[in-house]
């Protein structure tokens, strides 16, 4: 895909300082669209969720969705923003088939929320990300390019447009440039989007599914020579649709731009596209710079003037935000800062929380997710949430161990069954016959056999070296393939030998 020259990442940092900026679009989960009553449900047949307003038919007029305005204000409040007492929508004029009116109704110099911030933590260090603005706009339709090899507009036989998405409320959250991240710039970018996603999810205003496009990220990046006073030209990478991609795209652009600058060339101010498969970016519209959107206040809508009392009420009723929740949970669950950071990075905080909610003691929930399950996710090369086990199943597993039905070693085998899709832990115990053995005939026979099979060990034990008993316990465990309870076996041996 790309023949870009790249500089080795560590080397980039010896000569350049990165400056990142993020523009994040969040599709709100309101029942109806931003300016009409059409449904916003994802995945409907093309153009079935449309009306004269969102199709931009002649004469149709917009009416602003109050639930979307409320959701935007709540996001702004959660980010510590100032909420405008009076602001307007604006028309962003440009021609493209996926915008039905020939302009996008957005906000320009009067955003609903301004001047907020979000603190993110990477490797124990806190980075403050300043939020420049949070504004409300409408989403575009989707172009489908039919025919041709690439699915892109060039080479396509013809194009179709689906306007179901057109007019869905979209919140744009724009950071100020984030300096000082240095080598950690890719991780800081990722941590910011992760944290923002957590906040939006906590507010319940969007399902923030990056894979469905309800959270989309544009990553701005520029480099400055180390010690230099001026930042270089920035590029804006679009289509960055997973947390991992955010990190990779920053890394890639740092390496690419460094190579361009090393060659004494200039960075072109342009839109670039991120390619999930190769992890590279490619040049998009460079005429973007020349586009004059001719913004002006939208005359079809009245100004927004959020009532002070209303905003105060919204502020007072914000839910516990992720940062505060983490502090509380760290205490309740006895997590170290590193463990908490790890859980967060792995996207596993909710998994632990849900496991606790399903009845497992916090210490056990943490032990399983951070230990055995993390190891298996790592071995399988997937993210923790992608493992085929639910928090409810983990809680059940913990319960079976606590009840003595299984021991830790058996529990791992039970987990094998659960991950293999054999059902819930209790069912796997049953089907695989993994329950701990009681003092059954089978166990008695195994104990007797161990004693009979190792007269030298027996002599040692009876001669006073009680710790030698461990070898006999091990032998019994081996014969029973781990199904015996070690403590029971030890007691049985003691009864017979001492």
């Amino acid at each position, binding site marked *: 895909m790309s023949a870009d020259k790249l500089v080795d990442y560590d080397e980039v940092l010896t000569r350049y300082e990165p400056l990142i900026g993020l523009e994040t679009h969040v599709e709100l989960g309101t029942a109806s669209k931003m300016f009409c009553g059409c449904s916003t449900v994802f995945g409907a047949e093309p153009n079935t969720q449309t009306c*004269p307003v969102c*199709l*931009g*038919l*002649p*004469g*149709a*007029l*917009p*009416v*602003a969705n109050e639930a979307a305005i409320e959701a935007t204000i709540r996001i702004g409040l959660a980010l510590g923003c100032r909420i405008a007492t009076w602001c307007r929508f604006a*028309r962003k*004029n440009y*021609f493209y*088939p996926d915008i*039905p*009116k*020939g*302009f996008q109704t957005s906000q320009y110099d009067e955003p609903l929320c301004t001047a907020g911030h979000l603190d993110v933590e990477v490797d124990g260090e806190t980075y403050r990300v300043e939020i420049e603005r949070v504004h409300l706009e409408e989403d575009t339709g989707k172009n489908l390019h039919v025919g041709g090899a690439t699915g892109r*507009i060039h080479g396509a036989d013809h*194009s179709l*447009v689906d306007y179901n998405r057109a007019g869905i409320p979209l919140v744009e959250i724009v950071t100020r440039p984030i300096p000082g991240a240095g080598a950690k710039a890719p991780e800081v970018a990722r941590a910011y989007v992760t944290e923002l996603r957590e906040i939006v999810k906590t507010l319940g205003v969007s399902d923030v599914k990056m894979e469905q496009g309800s959270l989309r990220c544009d990553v701005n990046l520029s480099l400055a020579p180390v010690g230099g006073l001026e930042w270089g030209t920035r590029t804006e990478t679009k289509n960055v649709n997973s947390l991992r991609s955010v990190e990779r795209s920053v890394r890639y652009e740092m390496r690419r731009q460094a190579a361009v600058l090393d060659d004494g060339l200039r960075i072109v101010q342009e839109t670039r596209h991120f390619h999930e498969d190769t992890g590279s970016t490619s040049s998009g519209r460079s005429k973007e710079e020349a586009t*004059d959107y*001719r*913004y*002006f206040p939208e*005359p*079809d*809508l*009245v100004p927004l003037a959020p009532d002070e009392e209303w905003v105060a009420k919204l502020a007072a009723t914000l839910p516990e935000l992720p940062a505060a929740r983490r502090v509380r949970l760290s205490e309740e669950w006895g997590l170290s800062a590193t463990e908490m950071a790890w859980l967060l990075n792995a996207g596993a905080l909710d998994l632990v929380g849900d496991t606790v909610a399903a009845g497992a003691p916090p210490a056990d929930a943490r032990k399983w997710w951070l230990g055995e399950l993390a190891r298996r996710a790592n071995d399988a090369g997937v993210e923790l949430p992608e493992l085929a086990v639910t928090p409810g199943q983990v809680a059940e597993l913990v319960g079976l161990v606590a009840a003595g039905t299984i021991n830790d070693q058996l529990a791992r085998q039970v987990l094998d069954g659960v991950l293999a899709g054999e059902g819930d832990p209790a069912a796997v115990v049953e089907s695989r016959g993994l329950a701990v053995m009681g003092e059954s005939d089978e166990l008695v026979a195994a104990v007797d056999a161990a004693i009979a099979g190792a007269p030298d060990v027996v002599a040692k034990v009876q001669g006073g070296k009680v710790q030698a008993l461990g070898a006999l316990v091990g032998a019994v465990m081996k014969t029973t393939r781990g199904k015996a309870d070690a403590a029971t076996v030890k007691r049985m041996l003691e009864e017979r030998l001492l």
Partner: protein
Amino acid sequence: MSSPVNDARASSAGDGGAERVRSRGEDSTVTSMTVTELQAALKDGATSVDLTRAYLDRIAADDGTLGAYLHVDPETALETAAAVDAAGRAGTGLAGLPVALKDVVVTEGVPTTSGSKILQGWLPPYDATVAARLKGAGTVLLGKTNMDEFAMGSSTENSAYRVTRNPWNPERIPGGSSGGSSAAVAGGLAPWAIGTDTGGSIRQPAALTGLVGHKPTYGSVSRYGLIAFSSSLDQAGPMARTVLDAALLHEAIGGHDPLDSTSIDVPLPVLAESARRGAAGDLSGLTVGVVRELGGDGHAEGYETGVLARFAEAVALLESLGAEVREVSCPAFDLALPAYYLIAPSEASSNLARFDGVRYGLRVGDDGTRDLDEVMALTREQGFGPEVKRRIILGTYALSSGYYEAYYGQAQKVRTLISRDFNAAFDSADGSRVDVLVSPTTPTVAFPLGARVDDPIAMYAADLCTLPASLAGVPAISVPCGLSDGLPVGLQIMAPALADDRCYRVAAALEAAQDAARGFRFLDQLTRRTADATEGAA
């Protein structure tokens, strides 16, 4: 020329209703009646089919030369009328009364072009609120009237489809952009019609054809379903033969609409009753301000002497009815024209961006050899007429980065100054307060067809007097005030926002006094003249 009532009777199965219509007097052919007379006829037994057929006959006979309509569907109109008759609704409220709509009003299943080739063939899937309300009231749609393309123009000569002539003189323009509506009503091809007014497009054609035309307070009539020209200025309103008729039509279309965010959520003032009270002729206690900047001392350049004479006589008549008259200066009105020609084209350049050939209407050049940008450009190149292109270019320039403040921004400031002039006149506490402001509606009578088509600036000057009320969003009515060179002259009455009732009251007083002095209604002069001409020819 006119369709005698017994034509209508022929189709009404001899129920005698049409005969009673005839008995009302020498001029009482259906197509020269006021709406209140038509209502009475319906109550007396005439049917909606009678009335509808009478107008359809006139359209069939005269519209070939007049050019008022872009679309007429006689069959559907008669079916609608028959349904109203069958339901027994005719005569209650507006039910059974025919009406014409300017083609800028979106009508479900009825072709709607806004006078442009780019919308040729488009069948809208929905009704404008104005259309829906008239439909709900049981009116019968006669057809869609011609207009300047996208309402941009003052003579209807910018229509992509046909020339519309002034019924008073077929070599003259009928005004614009609602010239199809004005010609239809003045020519007896509709009892009344809906027009839209962005900078004078109801009042100017009403004035030039001897009608009453009212531009309501901005936000008091829904814009939902009006094909937008300039969103912050567009208003639909009535065009009618009398002040009372206009008030009745306004009441039918006005009032809050949740589909239009800029619609004002207050009850409509009582309009028809204000017109009736006004017609009693007592204006004592009312203060009338004559705007110096609109044809007064030092500002008369470009105004015809006949127009100024009729205006002065009308003001004297208002005074004789008890009104106190004083001159008022509104200095910012001088800046209305340049401000308007920045704001309206700016908004238009954005409003007309949706006509790209992708979803509806004309598409040019989509033959598989051209890319999307080329198809869009070709469609717009061939779909828009020269005046529309001129304004799109003007507006695009005015909004472009680096020029925005100097043009659009400055124009908005002028708009604020104009509003302040109105406020100073209507609200000042120092005793100089006036209840209404008056001016000529237009500087000249209807000019000859073709006279200004090559001179946009001269064409724009036709809206000189009507622009201030548009920019300030205040209501203004045009009412006939006499003839100059045998052509109608209009007087404009402007009132504070939401005081539309004042326009109707004063206009009705003037109308009644003039009718009394003349001995017949203003438009009857035209009817008589047409009748004489027909006899002469015979």
